[in-house]
């Protein structure tokens, strides 16, 4: 097949195929393996039990993100279980010769934030991590997917995985986004349109004018939530934007190697006549700031819309809607704007980057956090925190009544002390509004962009950010 008719996924897949296995599966070489403290200790234990070494230790990098506290990171950590996990990671990495980014290194952060910012993530790579949001790295035109712990073991032992090649769906987002409409709103709209399981069996290739004009950080937000639409991986073809982002990053190639890398990267983009298994289109001009109202990310509406009526849903969806309304204690037909909140969380691998904090700070400086709202800003990495402090964003947040924290996953999944309490309603820039996700079994989550979270924090209720920044 000529390069013009192949899409990026096919090109990357073919380059990394070690061999075809029976039943249509591929033994795929994994070029970059990222690990963290939650899903790796059991994998190292399995390896020890099988008496196998780590085959390519220089192709695995580690960080600590899920369990790390965002207030006091002094060792030993106050939570003995968290300390045990962190110690296990340190020992496993030291034994195997794997580079680990601890808080002391100054490079620590959420695995999907540091991979790109260190230049570890590059176009054309196959990337795996024991974390479903590994799809994030597709923003550079990498084929990146989340795996479980047994597969972490497989990669450590062989640098390979057994996988079936996914189909590819091209998603075109046309037009241009209005003020106050962000990458988060684009991906929420895509998931709303295609459903939370619409992407099962597919890789999503995002394109069109809206995607092409996005910065790398915005693209990372879009690819990050591919998995919330059921697609294990999502990617954007490499272009000037992604290539320029990588220039000069610590792990990016330099000199003559850089020039050769750039020409290689450009050749990876899907050809003009590339074939896809499916193509869908979304009109970016019509998108509004989005807010989830239910218990999965597909249950979202524009902030100017009313909550959907159960009767008007397709029969097979009605039970899910009823379950969501019962859990959220919201009423069909009511507007989502004006819904009261008690907690505001800005951070996560979806929206914890410097551009996210800049947009949120722009809103934060228009007022004060409402008296009954607890508001947290958690930078995605130490590098993001340093940059934000250099720009004075931390001061803006503090002055407005937000807590300024240290880097980690924090209240996205509440494996550390940052948690909802009871029935609290949280405006959150994270990626999942599942029941109990933010640490209280009955706590409730409304997903939205960081700027929308800041607006909700100040008004104490869901607010159209366009009213605040206009």
């Amino acid at each position, binding site marked *: 097949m000529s390069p013009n008719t192949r899409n990026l996924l096919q090109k990357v897949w073919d380059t990394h195929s070690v061999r075809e*296995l029976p039943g249509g599966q591929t033994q795929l070489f994994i070029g970059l393996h990222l690990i963290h403290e939650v899903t790796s200790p059991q994998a190292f234990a399995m390896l020890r039990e099988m008496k196998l070494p780590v085959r390519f230790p220089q192709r695995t990098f580690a960080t600590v993100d899920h*369990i790390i506290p965002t207030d006091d990171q002094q060792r030993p950590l106050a939570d003995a279980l968290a300390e045990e*996990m962190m110690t*296990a990671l340190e020992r496993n990495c030291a034994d195997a010769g794997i580079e680990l980014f601890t808080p002391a290194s100054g490079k620590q952060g959420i695995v999907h934030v540091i991979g790109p910012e260190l230049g570890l993530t590059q176009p054309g790579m196959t990337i795996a991590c024991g974390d479903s949001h590994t799809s994030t790295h597709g923003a550079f035109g990498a084929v990146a997917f989340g795996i479980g712990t047994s597969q972490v073991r497989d990669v450590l032992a*062989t640098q*390979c995985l057994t996988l079936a090649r996914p189909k590819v769906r091209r998603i075109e987002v046309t037009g241009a986004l209005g003020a106050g409409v962000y990458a988060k709103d684009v991906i929420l709209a895509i998931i709303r349109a295609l459903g*939370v399981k619409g992407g099962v069996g597919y890789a999503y290739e995002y394109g069109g004018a809206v995607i092409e004009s996005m910065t790398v950080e915005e693209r990372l937000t879009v690819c990050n939530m591919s998995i919330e639409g059921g697609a*294990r991986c999502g990617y954007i073809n490499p272009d000037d934007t992604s290539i320029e982002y990588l220039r000069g990053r610590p792990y990016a190639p330099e000199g003559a190697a850089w020039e050769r*890398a750039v020409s*290689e990267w450009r050749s990876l983009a899907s050809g003009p006549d590339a074939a896809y298994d499916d193509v869908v289109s979304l009109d970016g001009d019509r998108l509004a700031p989005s807010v989830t109202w239910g218990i999965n990310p597909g249950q979202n509406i524009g902030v100017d819309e009313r909550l959907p009526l159960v009767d008007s849903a397709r029969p097979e969806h009605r039970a899910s809607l009823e379950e969501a309304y019962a859990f959220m204690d919201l009423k069909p037909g009511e507007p989502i704007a004006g819904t009261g909140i008690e907690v505001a969380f800005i951070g996560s691998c979806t929206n914890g980057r410097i551009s996210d904090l800049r947009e949120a700070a722009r809103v934060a400086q228009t007022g004060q956090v409402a008296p009954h709202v607890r508001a947290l800003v958690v930078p995605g990495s130490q590098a993001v925190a340093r940059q934000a402090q250099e720009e004075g964003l931390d001061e803006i947040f503090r002055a407005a009544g937000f807590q300024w924290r240290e880097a980690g996953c924090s209240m996205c999944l509440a494996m550390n002390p940052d948690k909802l309490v009871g029935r609290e309603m949280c405006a959150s820039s994270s990626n999942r509004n599942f029941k109990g996700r933010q640490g209280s079994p009955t706590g409730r989550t409304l997903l939205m962009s960081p700027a929308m979270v800041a607006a909700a924090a100040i008004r104490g209720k869901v607010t159209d950010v366009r009213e605040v920044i206009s």
Partner: protein
Amino acid sequence: MSDDTRPLVKGRALVLRGDDIDTDRIIPARYLRCVTFDEVGEHAFEDDRIQAKGNHPFDDERFEGASILIAGQNFGCGSSREHAPQALMRCGFEAFVGGSFAEIFFGNCTALGLPCVTLAPKDLAALMDAVSLAPEAEVEVDVEAREVRHRGKAFPATLPDGTRDQLLQGTWNAVAVLLGAGDAIEQTAARIPYLRGYAD
């Protein structure tokens, strides 16, 4: 044939209705604070069960001892945590029947030798109703024939060829197969541009 082959799983089944049941619900994140999987089974569906106040299928004594879990659409969506299938396995489940499965969950189950087979919506509804009425009757998940049977009724099931091969041949622990490629792994690495430092 090794003991790892999984041609057929036979046992009583538990019906868990509802779509999009995510892995945070299967095993809440606070129980991921561990370095082994030993204790995750004790916390399967813990928060859902508390909120259901005894009315959760996992607390329904008619389903006690079930080894097959029958779920709805998109079961196991969300987080990649293998703690989810590990928890269910440690509760005694050996196979899953559903409308559809999230891919990472499906892959994690396969890596543990736990078949996940899917049924057409109307067959799934019929099976759920039949098992709810007669939970004492055994269900057979036939990996080889790609069929689910209950009280003499057979439903055609879907299972990808590659996964079926792994289960039938007992090669679901992929390490041995992957190691079998031998030097081909290093040879592949040697032709990948970025692993060569983008050298000429």
